[in-house]
């Protein structure tokens, strides 16, 4: 059993200069640290500039737009999203997208699961569950018509997604979600 009252003689191990206790200043180390600090401030400034530019989402660099090759669908989204932060993906339909007063929109499963679709605005009349995604049916009169998806990604990663009007050319894109 360890002796709880173990003792050790006091030794005067404190460094002294001219009989006085040394301050312990280490200017060589401090100069290196100041150089490191300068670098850190540059990195901090860069982070802010890149953030304002939208490299971490929510800025001009993050905004993206894709159009299907046949012009039925135009998708505006943020190519860089943030985890647990809401955003809107807007889909604008061309005249060819409306068939018999309906728009049938297909969205891949990654938009629902990975990118966390919270709401579809307006609410679809019919939702059909498919193998790799969902098909929403909306009533539509004439263009311009648009549908918004309210996204809120639950985790970081790169997510491929596909959206398209059923029977027309789809739009493929990627969204990078930062932590």
């Amino acid at each position, binding site marked *: 059993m360890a002796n709880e009252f173990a003792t050790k003689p006091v030794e005067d191990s404190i460094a002294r200069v001219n009989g006085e206790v040394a*301050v*312990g*200043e*280490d200017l060589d180390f*401090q100069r290196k*640290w100041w150089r490191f*600090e300068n670098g*850190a401030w540059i990195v901090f400034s860069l982070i802010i500039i890149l953030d304002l530019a939208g490299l971490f989402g929510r800025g001009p660099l993050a905004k993206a737009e894709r159009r299907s090759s046949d012009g039925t669908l135009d998708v505006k989204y943020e190519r860089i999203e943030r985890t*647990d932060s809401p955003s809107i993906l807007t889909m604008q339909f061309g005249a060819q997208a409306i068939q018999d007063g309906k728009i049938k929109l297909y969205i891949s499963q990654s938009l629902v699961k990975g990118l966390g679709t919270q709401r579809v605005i307006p609410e679809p009349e019919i939702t059909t569950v498919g193998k790799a995604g969902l098909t929403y049916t909306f009533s539509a009169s004439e263009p311009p018509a648009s549908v918004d998806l309210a996204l809120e990604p639950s985790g970081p990663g790169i997510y491929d997604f596909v959206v398209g009007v059923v029977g027309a050319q789809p739009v493929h894109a990627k969204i990078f979600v930062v932590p």
Partner: protein
Amino acid sequence: MAAVLRAFFGYLFLVLVVRIVGRRPGKQLTPFEFVLVFFIGGLALTAIVGNEASFTNGICQIVTMGLAHYTLAWGRSKSSRFARLVDGTPLILLEKQNWRVNTLRRMRIKNDDVIASARDSGIGTLQEIGQAVLERNGEISISARAE
């Protein structure tokens, strides 16, 4: 798992940022430094806790913070190089009636801060100060000039 990692890296990042932001004499903490302390704390809380406001998460993150702090303190006690990295070293601000202007500038400390600490130590004039040292904890210690 993610919450524990957030707490761990959040703690390390805060230690780094506070270390870089600099030591300011504790007793002369100005209102804007109070704002910094509370604001950084609040922002860190938001990012670290996220949307997991459960009691379990709170306990896990507090334990993680405690363990991270213990590890840092243990490292400091075991390695003087590590301690120097985490805490820095004392810095002389005034010696032999000369200001260390470069140190004052780099540490963002004004002569007034030193004079305030001198008054706190019962020294009324600059001529009576033998040495002023910015300690690792941000305090300025003043020793009287030898007669």
